[in-house]
């Protein structure tokens, strides 16, 4: 009951958007002109079939590597907090952890996942 304001905000938000859009759809004029759905590119005709283009796969690999190494860093934070209590054991443990991940980094390096020099035409 304390959050009733939040719930009513949610309902009004959703309801307003639904009502406005559906009223638009119901009552608005519907004339199909051939160029209404044409993608906008500053008035210039499209270079390719669609306005969507593909992207360099390096972005994808970067995202994947980010996910992995970011989580690795996230694991390092709590270790850093309790490092005092862990002593030598903690040091060796984390050393082994980082070693395994370094092997992964070397693998990615060797498979040219980190090469970002490319010609503009191959984009």
């Amino acid at each position, binding site marked *: 009951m304390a959050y009733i304001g939040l719930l009513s905000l949610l309902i009004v938000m959703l309801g307003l958007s639904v009502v406005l859009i559906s009223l638009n759809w119901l009552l608005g004029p519907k004339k199909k002109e051939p160029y209404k759905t044409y993608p906008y590119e500053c008035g210039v005709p499209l270079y390719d079939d669609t306005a969507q283009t*593909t992207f360099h796969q390096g972005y994808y690999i970067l995202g*994947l590597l980010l996910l992995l190494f970011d989580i690795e860093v*996230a694991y390092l934070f709590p270790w850093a907090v309790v490092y005092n209590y862990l*002593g030598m054991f903690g040091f060796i443990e984390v050393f082994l952890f980082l070693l395994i991940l370094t092997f992964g980094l070397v693998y990615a390096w060797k498979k040219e996942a980190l090469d970002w020099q490319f010609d503009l035409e191959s984009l």
Partner: protein
Amino acid sequence: MDIRLLLGSTNLYEFKYLLPEITVFVGAFVLFLLDIVMKNSETKKRVFLWISILFLALSMLSFSFKNAFFKDVFSGTYTIDTLGMFSKIFEIVLTLLVLPFLHTYMNKKNTFYYEIYYIIFLSLLGMMTLSSSYNLIVIYVSLEMVSISFYIMTALFRGSFISKEGAYKYLIIGGISIIIALYGAAFMYAASKSLDIRAIMSSYNDANAVYLIVGMILFLLAFAIKIGIIPFHFWLPDAYTAAPTPITGFMASAGKLAFFIPLLRLVPYVNQHLYSSWMISVSILAAATMIVGNALALVQSDLKRLLAYSSIAHSGYILSVLSSNSSMGLKAAIYFVFVYSVMGLGAFLVLSVLEQAEEWDNQLPKIGGLYRNTGFLSISFAVFIFALLGIPPTVGFVGKALVFLGLAIKNIYWLGFVLILATAISTGYYVRIVVLMFMKDVEVRFKPHYDILENVSISLLVFLTFVLGMFPFVLWNGISNISEFLFKIANLR
């Protein structure tokens, strides 16, 4: 922390319970080494396939059925019980069924990625550990392992734009989901000072209620995103369309099975304080998922996307019966999760065989008159479609009937009517596929080539669809015991 103390408290003989996972891990490692050592050739492809099958068979054989009683090993981070064992066996079998299709799919595309074999093994390893733990960290790491393998496999075939777009969406939204899970896990730990779900849920009291509930919601949000609950399903159709079809089948069947297991483990621990809010929120989400999933499938013209939306709808069916926090509901949910993996995999695998013909893009009108081209594939596709629809005597019917029973036990009648509405909507597109296949004239003339292993896989899935549907007691006794046991354990704590 004394290292001698740590080493002394690890019982090395407990590793024998972990033998299936170790076999899978060793298999992945062996395949990885083979990939580096061998040169690319035809024999290498065959060798990879057969070595994978060998390791999976070894893994199945290394289950120790005698020790299948409820036991916490490795000081509570890993649990051996019947639910875990059932799901591990199912996951291994599903992987075994998918592998031949990968082989022919990659052959047909003329790009053979050997990495896919050991990445599947690693995802299988993740699924196996995901299915057997109550510990937040183990669940989290396994979830990551499965998800990252799926991201890699989705993007592996770098051909078309569709493939990249879907994989990218999957990566981004999956990454967000995993971070939210971590945040939720942090809250749950803060609320109860324990990393075990059982202890966390039992430590509910007024002081930590808020943190516990917020943590639980955030943690479950990750699973909701993974299994495709509305409104977190936006990545699913694109990712399923982008991935190569055998991998889509694998994700939709074994992946969904693995992602559901922690939810199923959590359900008995939702105690009476949380029950009413759990029921309301889960049932509303399930109702929305069922209706929206089926309605969106109705307007699809691409078969793979249609099957992806239907898998969203089936997640909704399973979730709806989880909202009734009863033992019968849990039995129905477990049964339906296992049988959906069989049906869903069958449908996707038939599609992957059809894709090998050059004239086939996955558009719906192309399926016209398929019966003239290939009797076996069209009949098995019809069997899987009827199973997904819920026609007796297939497993889909038993699943739906049990869902109805689970809802009736707790008097949640409105959700039953929503289920009827959702099935009614789904009838539209399923029947259309069957009618187009058998009763229209031939659209595309082609002869799908499939070798003996694929034939065996599809036949096995059809056989399972019928046998588990006509004789459900094969699975039922085990599932019933699992569910009763889980509830008993939950109430004892």
